[in-house]
């Protein structure tokens, strides 16, 4: 079943009608309270806990993570809230999952695939260590993160694919709030994508990482999917994180999403 995505021009003309539809589909305060309560019993908590167990048993947990990066355990939460970041010993701007892989290699162990349930759980666990910390990526810290931010912004703004859409086509400030397929388009900074993913997705009944969500969205928008862990995908994560950072959002893993 081919899913039809409204083109930008169509969205524009539908704007007036959609505003009313938006109210119809917008969550009431009572509903919002119910869904927030669901966060207290998030199935993803079990996956995060499991990720922690694997991370602890197989790799030595936070202690080993801190040692590998040269960060003290007490500074670790704030440090984790600054990912993706440039890690000198890896020579690249990387995500938490890639650091986990590097740790595995340094311990002579087999690398867990980035696109695996095991890695998603470990990634979610390590990121959850930064819960309540403000997202804090310093895009001026070095030339690498500067370049990554620039690449991320370009990737976000570049129109491509069958319908000539970019991330910005649906998520720019003047478009957000309009309804697309019964759901109001979100402001990625306001909903703190970078702070609340990995999350439990109700439509998928599983823990989903932010990069996988980006891939899902790309598929729907008829954009060629960018590979997980690629330079462009990491750059996109950096840029999207700065959107939440600008709104002083905190890390809150795992999230709970439609």
């Amino acid at each position: 079943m081919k899913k039809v995505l409204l083109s930008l021009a169509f969205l524009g003309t539908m704007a007036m009608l959609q505003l009313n539809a938006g109210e119809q589909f917008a969550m009431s305060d009572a509903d919002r309270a119910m869904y927030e309560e669901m966060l207290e019993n998030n199935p993803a908590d079990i996956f995060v806990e499991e990720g922690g167990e694997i991370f602890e048993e197989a790799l030595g947990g936070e202690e080993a993570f801190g040692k590998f990066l040269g960060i003290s355990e007490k500074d670790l939460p704030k440090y984790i809230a600054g990912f993706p970041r440039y890690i000198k010993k890896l020579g690249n701007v990387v995500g938490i999952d890639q650091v986990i892989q590097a740790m595995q290699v340094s311990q002579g162990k087999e690398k867990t695939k980035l696109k695996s349930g095991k890695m998603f759980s470990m990634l979610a666990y390590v990121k959850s260590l930064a819960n309540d910390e403000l997202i804090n990526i310093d895009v001026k810290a070095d030339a690498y993160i500067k370049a990554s931010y620039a690449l991320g912004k370009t990737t976000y703004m570049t129109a491509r694919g069958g319908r000539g859409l970019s991330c910005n086509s649906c998520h720019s400030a003047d478009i957000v709030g309009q309804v697309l397929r019964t759901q109001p388009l979100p402001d990625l900074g306001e909903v703190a994508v970078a702070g609340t993913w990995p999350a439990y997705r109700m439509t998928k009944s599983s823990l989903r990482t932010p990069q996988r969500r980006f891939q899902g969205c790309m598929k729907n928008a008829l954009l060629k999917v960018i590979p997980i862990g690629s330079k462009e995908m990491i750059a996109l994560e950096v840029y999207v994180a700065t959107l939440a950072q600008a709104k002083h959002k905190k890390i809150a893993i795992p999230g709970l999403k439609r």
Partner: protein
Amino acid sequence: MKRRNFIKGFCTASALAVAVSPSSLLAKDAPKSGNKLSLDMAITAITGGKAVAESKKVSLTVPEIAENGAVVPVKVHVESPMTDNDYVKAIHVLASKNGNSRCADVMLTPLNGKGYFATRVKLGGTQDIVALVEMSDGTFLKTSKPVKVTIGGCG
């Protein structure tokens, strides 16, 4: 009753038969929505045909609009002292238009302290959630609320 046993046997067999590959489970052999039961029939089955009174003592909390029909939160609370002589014996959660209208049957005891139960259910579409309550004195109470299920969104 027969159908449920058939399903149980079918699934147990496939669980034990390690050699059974998915392709050998042909669609025509698989159990259809084995537990089809309409709301009215389910209520009759539960109450034995006894009268059921709409009651404000039963409060049902469900979202007005379900973001996702696969995970709809449901909360039931029944006013009751929960003593040995006066307590909520059972809370039944039903969905008016699901093929199998039954969701859960919860048998409580005074040790629960409150006539309360919460869960998350699947709704096949916009319909009512029904909370059917059996009190320790054998009387039945109920209330219901509509839930609008939107099937949409990107991804």
